[in-house]
């Protein structure tokens, strides 16, 4: 019983990290008042970018045990964030500077991103990926000696802890700093924020790009850690991306809640495999739960609307000063 529970929790954390990156990125974007439906595409581009970084670093290496794991991981993270930030910049330029419709731009970006990843994935040399993935997994080698505690909390890869750190930092940024306050003002009521002298475009650009860069790491995590460097072209990262968008709503735009939400979503999507007694059809029911939870949260928050659990008020609308 206990071993099943811990297995569910471990799988929840390892699966949930994909959603957590996407979710925190999307929260930052949405707090700036932009609904970025391009997140699934951006996560794909991030996966490709990270894989590209790994390929660059391991290119021509004959003995994988000689390379520095630290720099390998850092290169992968850098390229992943660079690629996804570039994708985010396309979105930001279209929706902020050119005031384009956010839903349409986001969907176009998702189409583009998924195609971009699948197209170029076939050209990435993945021969060293399985060995390279060892540097992403199991940050604390001593965790196996610490019994159940080590297994559940310390057996994960570096990106899992990075995701949790990013979520906590984002929460602090949003709620405890002046920048966060200004950002929320931009998302809630850009006209008022503009009137007190906050540079709307700067905030929107900054946080769309930052959010995209964070979301892209979810793709990198899936390729290099979750699947241990075996899957890229066939990775269903876009469907994880939509779950990440769902998670934003389910966690009511709170990055710290997102940590637990992502574990829950991750556990639900792996539950049927962990509980081997279930049949395939039951498995499909469990896979539906995250979306149903999201819908329920969406409905309940709109009915019993407390101020602090609503979507940012200007979400989805372009800001044009003369429209006031």
């Amino acid at each position: 019983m206990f071993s099943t529970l811990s297995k569910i929790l471990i799988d929840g954390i390892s699966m949930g990290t994909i959603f957590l990156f996407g979710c925190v990125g999307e929260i930052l974007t949405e707090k700036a008042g932009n609904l970025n439906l391009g997140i699934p595409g951006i996560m794909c581009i991030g996966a490709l970018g990270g894989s590209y970084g790994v390929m660059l670093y391991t290119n021509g290496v004959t003995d994988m045990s000689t390379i520095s794991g630290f720099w390998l991981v850092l290169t992968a993270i850098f390229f992943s964030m660079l690629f996804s930030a570039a994708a985010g910049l396309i979105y930001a330029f279209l929706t902020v500077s050119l005031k384009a419709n956010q839903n349409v731009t986001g969907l176009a970006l998702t189409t583009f991103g998924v195609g971009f990843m699948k197209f170029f994935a076939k050209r990435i040399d993945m021969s060293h990926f399985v060995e390279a993935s060892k540097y992403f997994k199991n940050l604390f080698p001593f965790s196996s000696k610490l019994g159940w505690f080590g297994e559940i909390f310390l057996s994960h890869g570096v990106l899992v802890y990075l995701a949790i750190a990013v979520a906590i930092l984002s929460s602090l940024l949003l709620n405890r700093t002046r920048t966060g306050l200004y950002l929320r003002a931009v998302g809630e009521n850009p006209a008022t924020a503009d009137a007190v002298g906050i540079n709307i475009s700067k905030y929107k650009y900054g946080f769309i790009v930052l959010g995209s860069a964070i979301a892209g790491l979810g793709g990198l995590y899936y390729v290099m850690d979750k699947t241990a460097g075996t899957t890229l072209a066939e990775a269903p990262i876009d469907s994880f991306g939509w779950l990440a968008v769902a998670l934003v709503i389910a966690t009511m735009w709170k990055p710290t809640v997102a940590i637990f939400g992502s574990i829950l979503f991750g556990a639900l999507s792996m539950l049927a495999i962990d509980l081997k007694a279930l049949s395939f059809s039951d498995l499909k029911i469990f896979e539906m739960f995250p979306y149903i939870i999201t819908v329920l949260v969406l409905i309940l928050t709109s009915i019993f609307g407390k101020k602090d659990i609503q979507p940012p008020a200007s979400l989805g609308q372009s800001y044009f000063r003369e429209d006031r």
Partner: protein
Amino acid sequence: MTTEKTKNEPLFHVSKRDHMSHKNVLLVRLAGILVALVICGIMSVILIHENPFKIYATLVKGAFIDVWTLMKDTAVLLMFGLAVIPAFKMKFWNMGANGQVLVGCLVAIACMKFLTGVLPDAVIIILMIVTSILAGIIWAVIPAIFKAFFGTNETLFTLMMNYIAIGIVAYFSFAWDKSGSGNIGIVNLLTHKAWFPDIGNKYVLIIIVALLVDAFMFVYMRYTKHGFETALVGDSVNTAKYVGINVKKVIIRTLVLSGAICGIMGAIFAGSLEHTVNTQICGSKGFTAILVAWLANFDPLIMIATAFFVVFLNTGAANVSTVFQLKSTDYANIVIGIIFFCVIGSEFFIQYRIKPSQRMKDIMTKKNGASIKELFFTSKSRSAVKPLIVILAIGLELLIIAVIATIVIKTVV
């Protein structure tokens, strides 16, 4: 007159346009597409090392290899688009066309699977259509009711409904299939019982239906009171309330229409095109349809052209990847993505008017002590469009794209 006023003046004035003639709108969009084709051309040359005109010729030729499939795909995409148009006119972002079609298709297949032999074929076919439409309506109306009464965010709600529909279809795929492979397979494969009758070939039906629905939607949106009310709610909810329109009723009514069209599409998938249901049937057509509808400015007639354009590109680009052995059909998605980025960007020039200000004119003609330097150091100007930021953003974007492009080229070539 280099007064304080002109010193702080922005370089460009951006203002909303009242109206742009149809000819100019078309020209701006075409310019957008042209820019996109140039970008795609450059990209294709890098990837394929071929004369870009030859690549485009392959694309055009490839699109017309199978004209019936081309027309069928256009009709299917058109149906998805028609389903989302009335809701979009109302600024209700119905992202859930996929889910609405899927549930429709699922119940139609259920009718086919379990009633064959029990009832006469004609009755089954009628039942399939009716239940499918009902299912589509239910799936569309749930978010609409919550939107109407509680203001629940419909974009996210309808998006989630897609995945719930996919889950339900996946569940029944396994529940109905005894072999455990999760594949319902083609229902009544040998007997063709309860399949919709073929008119010529199996693609004619969807084409006719799509054209009929298109004509209906054109009349509905333009010449009926309902259509007018829908558009008015989209323009301004407050105006609509003021003139005595029951906004809640309009929202729900419009989504019933959306759901019904999706239901018809689902019934046709079940009865005429696929004879089966699986989670992949809709692909991402519901999302592509949103782009197509937006591109057509939510006009049903123009949408025939835009749907054709996107399907044409998709089919053609797929052919390019086969002919030039690109190992992947996803070349099409990249091309479509780039074209949409450019067209979406060009929309700005349709909506807004950009005029150089007096200061910009001064700078350009070097009058009144203005100098070119001011173009780049305008930290003091309180402008709507900060030139430096825009220039930096475009520059940075180009730079990053260039870096990525060179990296990609180096690894690929």
